[in-house]
């Protein structure tokens, strides 16, 4: 790595650290409980959007089923908390580990397809889970969803820290930042660049000596793990989960956020999630037409500015830095 890029990496690490510190301090600002709740929920969605965005960026794959992993993370945590007395760390490990394992196995089969076929496959898988949870009332309450009671003490802490916005926000924000940093470092690493090269020329990567299926399956499992983590956090905070989380249109929303934010950038999807969140809240009455707004934004960005909001920001930044001469 050149000196320039290691300087850049150090800078990014410093920024990440400051972001985490900021996240810990934010709850002390006078922003009001409603807003605090809002941004807490926002981090969960941001994590889910990031998982979808990872797959788009590294593999060029559009998944309509990633809500599955988010939903599974939430449901497994809920079911284990409700029906077993397993230690909390084990529960979290399973709630993230099982969807990741499933993601890996699914990827080995599904990632062989690309483009629309892949999208339809992920949709199909998502719907299977959705239908099963919906119809199997005895397991998880079906349509009504499931609420759980967190045990009083978790990991040595009062479990209320997960249910109070001020503390939960800091926890999930730090996790979100850690995930984004981790993804950035992964993308810069040899393996990250190799996976990205598969998008350019899959055959050549194979002839350079790499198993491209395994590489992409790895990225898929990574994105499943991230999604599942988001689901776990969601459950801990809300203490409630419903089959909506598994529906393919919920995946679709995460997809919209990732694309509008700009999937080619590590923090694009998270940015997209946050922007949608704040705009939705600020718009108040017009929230009735939230779905239409999402649809319009998706179309506009896809056709006109595929690089998304993050891309627009980058272009503006470059223009500012280098002058208008040669930047499009």
């Amino acid at each position, binding site marked *: 790595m050149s000196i320039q890029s290691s300087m850049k990496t150090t800078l990014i690490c410093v920024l990440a650290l400051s972001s985490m510190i900021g996240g810990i301090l934010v709850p002390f600002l006078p922003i009001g409980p409603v807003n605090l709740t809002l941004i807490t929920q926002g981090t969960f969605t941001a994590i889910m959007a990031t998982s979808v965005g990872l797959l788009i960026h590294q593999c060029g794959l559009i998944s309509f089923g990633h809500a599955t992993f988010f939903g599974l993370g939430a449901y497994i945590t809920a079911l284990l908390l409700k029906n077993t007395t397993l230690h909390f760390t084990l529960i979290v490990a399973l709630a993230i580990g099982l969807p990741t394992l499933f993601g890996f196995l699914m990827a080995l089969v599904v990632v062989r397809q690309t483009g629309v076929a892949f999208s339809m496959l992920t949709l199909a898988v998502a719907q299977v889970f959705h239908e099963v949870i919906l119809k199997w009332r005895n397991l998880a309450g079906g349509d009504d969803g499931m609420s759980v009671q967190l045990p009083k003490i978790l990991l040595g802490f009062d479990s209320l820290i997960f249910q109070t916005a001020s503390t939960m926000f800091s926890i999930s924000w730090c996790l979100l930042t850690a995930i984004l940093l981790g993804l950035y470092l992964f993308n810069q690493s*040899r393996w990250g*660049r*190799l996976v990205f*090269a598969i998008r*350019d*020329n899959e*055959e*050549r990567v*194979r*002839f*350079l*000596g*790499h*198993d*491209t299926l395994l590489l992409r399956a790895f990225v898929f499992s990574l994105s499943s793990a991230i999604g599942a983590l988001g689901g776990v956090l969601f459950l801990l905070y809300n203490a409630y989960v419903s089959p909506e989380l598994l529906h393919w249109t919920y995946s679709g929303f995460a997809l919209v956020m990732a694309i509008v934010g700009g999937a080619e950038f590590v923090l694009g999807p998270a940015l997209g999630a946050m922007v949608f969140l704040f705009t939705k809240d600020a718009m108040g009455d017009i929230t009735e037409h939230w779905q239409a707004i999402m649809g319009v934004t998706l179309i506009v960005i896809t056709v006109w500015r595929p690089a998304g909001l993050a891309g627009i920001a980058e272009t503006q930044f470059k223009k500012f830095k280098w002058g208008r001469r040669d930047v499009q």
Partner: protein
Amino acid sequence: MNPVALQGIKLTRQFGGFFALRDVDISIPAGEIRGLIGPNGAGKSTLIDVLSGRSTRSQGSVLMDGQEIHQCTPQERRRLGLARSFQRTSIFTTRTVRDQLELASHWKNDDNVQEVMDHLDLKQHQNQVANHLSYGHQRRLDLALALIGKPQVLLLDEPAAGLTMQESLRLAQLLRDLVKRWQITVLLVEHDMDVVFTVCDRITVLNLGEVLMEGTVDEVRSSSLVISAYLGRNAA
């Protein structure tokens, strides 16, 4: 190390009733540069595809260094030291020259990226995005990617395709120097006879999916069998 670097035994590739390759035997000693020529449709590219693992439905044996690799995937073959270049340029269009060559080097600790760039005259373009290179330079890049990591055996599918006579001969020279220096065994498919006769030690001639003859440059040049195979095609 086995004296025979690469060997194909009774290689057959069928498409329905049509035989692209039929019982082809080829044996290349270590360090040799073998040419593979033949009229259009002779099966040259198919043979490269079978040997490199790109073509999966074939019968016969492929042995590298005495080891059977017919069931190996292309990535496994590369890890064993068998690399190839492509007739239709196959590079990473969005990356710079240097970037993709570095990407190609992995488990081998000797970073021969610099050497390869030097030898193939790509150094001055190292920071250019591959898309912006001239066709000729892209062909070299395709070749360079195969040379990273000093493979043991190199399969080249018309590396001079589309190049001018001058560019072709230059490439041939560069190739021969590098390959002899690193003692790589080469199987080179080419239409351009000047390149073949300049670079190769021995030549195998294919016609209609079968081996017509194998010999030194002079033997092949003067063989009436070979001449009629080419002319026969034209006359028909």
